[in-house]
Every structure is written in C-alpha cells, then in structure tokens.
C-alpha cells in the first residue's frame, strides 16, 4: 500500500517542479497561430474608407446564415466605402457562427477576415451579436496591413488586431479593456502554403 502511496506522491512532486501549462487568463493571452479563425474583423483601406461594399456575398455564402447585411447608397460627398454601395448595418451572430471562414472566402474586396480573438463569452446573448462598430477596424489609429506581424513571409499577413488603444468597440470582446490585452499572433512559420 505504501508503494502506491509513494508512487502517487512522486507524481505530485514532479508536477510541482515543472512549469505549469496554465496561464493567467484573461490577463495573459495565448499566442494564436497566424491563420487562426476567431472573431471577424471588417477592414479598411489605408485612407480609412471601409472595404466592405455591402454586397451580401458573405451572408449568401455563410452556411449557417448568421450574417446580416443592409446596404445603402454612398453619399458622394462623404463616402463610407469606395463606389456606390456600402453596408449601413453589418451584424454577425457569433453564437451561431461556426468559424468556417467561408465569408472571408466569398468577400470580393477582402473586407472581412477571421481574426485572432477567441474569448467569445458574455453574460448577455444580445451582446454576442457583433455589430458593425464591434467588427470594424478603428479609425484613425489602426495598424495598417503593411505593418502587420507577418509581413514578408510570402503568405497572407496576419490580421492587424483592432483591439489596441483607440479602439472604441463595445460588445463581446470590447468591455473592460484592462482584461483584454492584445492577443499575440505567432509569426507565420512557413505555414502559408497549405498541404496539397
């Protein structure tokens, strides 16, 4: 019986001396792979115009139907996006989304991509319907794509995260800024080309 007891204790002692696998989440965040498919981001062009043109192709491609887009006509004096059309309302039901990335695939302007944000929980269901304000890159002050962490690796650059200072989104990931430090994205280690 002692033998078994000692065996158990040894396991315990060994665990006490090794480095823990847990982290101080949410103060600390895990590094996510560059192609992680987390909460969506709506991008802007470098001049601040929104890339999204409200075409609803993402909504059409979405297998679960969790995207809602309402388009409208741009005012030529104060355009929201280049061209005639933009999205006045853009909403994604994050509870229903299966993070398949089809929306990003379908988008003709590369306006939507899936980002690193993965801590999607809330006390209120309604707040898990991300609105355009939640999803859109902040302006001014967002990190343009050209300075992204994965620059020069020959693969799509990792998403600039809109979660830094100046970000004004409410909703799922946006509350209590102190608890939501930027999520580090691991540099792309040659995983740009998917296995054939």
């Amino acid at each position, binding site marked *: 019986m002692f033998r078994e007891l000692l065996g158990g204790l040894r396991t315990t002692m060994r665990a006490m001396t090794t480095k823990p696998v847990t982290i101080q989440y949410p103060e600390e965040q895990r590094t996510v792979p560059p192609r992680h498919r987390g909460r969506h981001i709506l991008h802007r062009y470098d001049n601040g115009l929104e890339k999204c043109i409200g075409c609803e192709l993402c909504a059409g491609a979405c297998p679960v139907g969790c995207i809602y887009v309402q388009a409208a006509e741009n005012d030529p004096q104060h355009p929201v996006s280049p*061209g*005639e059309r933009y999205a006045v309302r853009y909403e994604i039901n994050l509870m229903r989304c299966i993070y398949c990335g089809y929306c990003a695939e379908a988008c*003709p302007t590369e306006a939507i991509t899936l980002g690193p944000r993965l801590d999607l929980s809330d006390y209120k269901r309604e707040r898990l319907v991300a609105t355009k304000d939640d999803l859109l890159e902040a302006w001014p002050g967002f990190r343009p794509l050209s300075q992204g962490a994965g620059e020069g690796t020959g693969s799509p650059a990792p998403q600039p995260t809109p979660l830094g200072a100046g970000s004004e989104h409410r909703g799922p990931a946006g509350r209590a800024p102190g608890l939501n430090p930027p999520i580090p994205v691991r540099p792309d280690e040659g995983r740009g080309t998917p296995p054939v």
Partner: protein
Amino acid sequence: MAAVEAPGELLRVTIDDRQVEVAPGSLVWDACEKAGVYVPVYCAHKKLEPVAVCRMCLVEIEGMPKLQPACATRVSQGMQIRTATDQVRDFRRGNLEFLLLNHPLDCPVCDRGGECDLQDFTQRYGPGRTRSAITDKVHFDKAVRLSDRILLDQERCILCWRCVRYYEEVTGEREIVLQERGVHTLVDTFEHRELQSEFQGNLPEICPVGALTHAQYRFRARPWDLRRTASVCPKCSYGCNIFIDAREEQIARFASNDNPDVDDSWLCDRGRYSFPELNRTERVLNPEARLGGGRQPVAHSEALARAAGALLRVRGDHGAGAVGFLCSPQVTNEEGFLLQWLARQVVGSPHLDHRLEPLPELSPEQFRLGIAELEERDAVVVLGDAPERSAPVLTLRLFKTETKRRRRVLRVPLGTPAASLLEPLQGCRSVGVVAHQEQRSEAVALSRSLAGAGLSSSVLTLVEGMNARGCQDLGVSPAVLPGYQPAAEPGMHGRAILEAAAAGSIKALVLLSPDPEWERDPAFEAALSEVEALIVVTPWLGLASRQATVLFPGRTVAEKAGTVTSTEGRVQRVRTALQPRFPFPPDLRVLGELGGALGTPLGVQPLAGPVFSLIAEAVPPYRGTQGGLRADWGAPA
C-alpha cells in the same frame, strides 16, 4: 420539309431526341419549352415580338447549314432540332465571351446580382475566363437617373433591345432608344429627356441584366433575402397579380406575376411603387377600450366583451337601426361578408356600406365583359378617360387590342349617343363598352342601344377600391343583399350614416379598416365625435383610432389571407406576406367573435376558408372561384 400541312394540324418536331407536337406558326423556342429543353435567351421575351439580335438562343436544325435562332425560327413538319451539340456549346461560350468583353462585372454592387441572366448563363454555359488581353474596357455612365423611379447603368447593358421594344410594342410611348454604333452603342432616352411613362416599373423586370433598376429598390436586398408571396395589387380594382417580396417583415418590392387574363405581366407605377404605405410602423398595436376617463390597452377578450356590451346597450336603448356599419373597399370578401352578417343577421341593422357616396342600381350586368375578352371584341368603346385613370394597366390592354389584335378602340366623350357610334362601328359584330362605375347607367344604356342595333355588346365598369366589386357582390351595400338581391328595407348609404350619426339618430358605429381619406371629410369627424359607441378595427393611427371607444388592431392587405374580387368579377387570393407586429387575432376573427359575443355564433371557424364556403352558399356564382376564376352571374336577363 416541303410537306404541305393542312391548316391547324399539329407539327411534329424532334428536339434532342424528344418528340413534341406544336401548333403551326410556333417558334422553335416554344417547341423547346414544350419538350422541356431549356434554351437560354436574352432578347426574346414572351410578350414581345422576336428580333433575334442577341444570338444566345442559336440551335442546330437539320438541313440548315448554320445555327438558327430558336427565338425567331418557326417550326415546320418533321424538324430535327439539336440544342446540346458541341457546335451550340461552342457558340454559346463564344457569345458570352463577347458579352463580357466590355461588361463591368460589378456584380457585388449590382442590384441584379443573384437573379441576373448574364450571371446565370455565364455560370452555366460560359467560358469562366477571358482570352482577350483587353484591360481597358469601354466605359459608359453608371447610375444615370432616367427618372425619379428608374436608374440606368449603361455599362451593364447587353443591348438586347427589350426596353426599346417594350416602349414600342407594349406602351407605344417610345421613350428609350439605342444610340451610336458598334462598341459605342448605348441605351438612353431620346435627347436625355426624363421618362414620363406611367409604366416605367416594368423596365427593370424585362431587362435581363442589371442595366435598368428601380430607384426604390436600390441596394435594398438580395434575392436570397426575400420571401416571395403571391398576392393582388392593392392599389386599384383591376386585380393585377403581384409577388410581394419581403425582407424582415418589410416589403422590399412588388414584382409582377403574369396573369394573361388580367395584367398580362405588366404593372403600373402607381401600384408597383405603392408599398411604402404598407411598411409604415406607426400602427395600432393593442386592443384598447375607453375605461372611465381615458382609453387603456386591454386584453383582446375584454375588448370583445366591451364592444359587444356597447352594441347591446345601444340596440336595447335605441333599437337596431341606431347602429351603423362602414368599411373601406380594402377589406377581403370574407371580412366584408362577415361585416354584412354582423349588421343584418346579428345586430339587425340595415345601415351598412363600403363607401361614403351612394351607389344605386347595381347589377352584375355592369361587369359581364372580362378584361381579356376586350381583345376578342371587334371594337371597344371607352367612355371618357376615367376608366384608364382609375386602372392604368387598362391602357396597355387597350393598346394591345388596338395594335396587336387590330381591333377598333374608340375613346369617346361622356354622353355620346349610340346613334353617332354606329358609323365608326360599321362592320363590327361585337363591341365592348368600358366605363367608370360612375357612368354605369350610361354604359349599360349605351350597350343596350348597340345591342338593339344588332351588335353583341356587353359592359365592363371600373369600380374604385381594391375589393369594391367584392363588397358589392356580397351585399356590403345598403340596398342589395349578397348576390344582388334587393334588400327588403334598404338602409342608409355611407354619408347618410355619418350624417345620422352627427345628428344623433345613429348611436353606435362599427368601422372596419376605415379609409384614411375619410378623415379629411368634415362629416366623418362630426359623426365620430357624436356617436356614443365607436368600435374600430384599423391598422392605422388617426382620427378613427383616436376617437374609438373600443379599438382593435387591424391588419393591412399584406398581412391577411382571403379573397378579393376584381372589377371584372375575378375572385383572387391575397396571402399573408408579412406578420404583423402584434399577436392579436386578424380582423376576420374579430368580426366572427364579436358575433358570438353578441349571441349569434358564426357556426364555422372565422378563417378565410370556412367563411368562403359560407359565401359560396349564399352567393352561388362564387362557388369554386377562389382560385382566380370569374364569378359566373349567368346569362343576361
């Protein structure tokens, strides 16, 4: 091929190993459709003459060295047609490649994306990529405002001529022309004038691509967002068939739903663009009742009990004749029938109407002539311009009768004596008389005199209001019972009811979907402020909803199910296209339950189907008509 066929004999043709028989004179396209073989077309349109300009429909016909356009080639006996050969496939691919050469392909911002023939055919038959090295496409203007209703994207036009031919063949107004030549050809209005037509809304529907679009539908929705419900246009009594396309319980557009007997697939702009009024969100949302000083929301059952109580009290104190019933012609047949049941059978009052002005001398003789039958008459006499102002789509039918069917259409001023018509009608054997309802007696008299002169003649009058004809058929009128039986003791007409209410002899009023227009009438206001009990079922906020003692939230035409009767006596279905924003029972149920609360149960469920059986029992011509047939009122006496 040279075989001579007897006229009327069916021709046997083979299409991709399928044999069909078609009438002589049919197009290869029709034969393909009959055989169930799909042929892509751009310029061809079922309602327009063939021009064969787009070359999309080319097929192989044995014995002919080159491909032939299916849309313009007539069949002959024993024709062998092939649509799936390599040559046809190659040609389609090449044709699409040419069409896309200068096409902007801005599908993501194009309103047609998702229901565009260019997208569909490219997907199905197209090359997928271009071989040409042209990077600089020919550009034209985008979003050109042709009028406040129609936008034109000249780049997206594939020059199919449909819009030009529509204006030439269907309306005769010729407002759109093709300009320039070759690669610079573009569609525009003549000298950039604004479109004036009353039928512009049909343009985006016939355009196979996203060149012509509705200003009102601009960026509203994608086709996959829309829920489509077949219904009837609510704007006039003509009964044009429509699709209500709704997105999130809001109507995004009305689209035409071809019924060759009524609208022939065309709608007028007044009807097509009328839906924003049905999208209004300021609505009556709760049953309410006047309790003590003010009015408060109450439960539906309590509102019913209070309405019944008020009516019983007035009938007890002042007799049944102190209760008046009014509805607008926007009610369905079922609702109208139950309102007249409530008035005559339950309460026992003869005072009931579907409009304010009196309407004596109603008879089925006033609409014996059907809309489609106009084309079969040797001549059509139209009295004044009121019929076409009341139902604009009638103009297109008359134009077709005149141009395509080559009949005589005489537009004569009111009061034209029959004798002066005999000369222009020389040589005609049958004639149709079209008039507004206000001229019903004149029209019937004219028709009788023409019949006296040896012509076979009948009348079509145009009534005012979506279901005015149904209200008249079903006796929602003071002088006639259902089926045009004369009432033993005729009641007061609408305005007389209001005046009696203002004078104090009518103590209770029941209003079902009152016409918002009535609020401008001082008599309406006076009546509403004087009556003791005012029971209102209405969707809209206004004078009636403010003054009501008991108020029920009503439904708009887009929110209810039932039948309506068009001016030619055609009984057509309206269907629930939108869910109302409140959970309370529909108007029909309110009427049925009110009868029950007053002590006379209806006997059937207050739903459209069972109530229609009651109607069919009371008015035999309505039997079996609810699928869109005209009620048959028998031969003229």
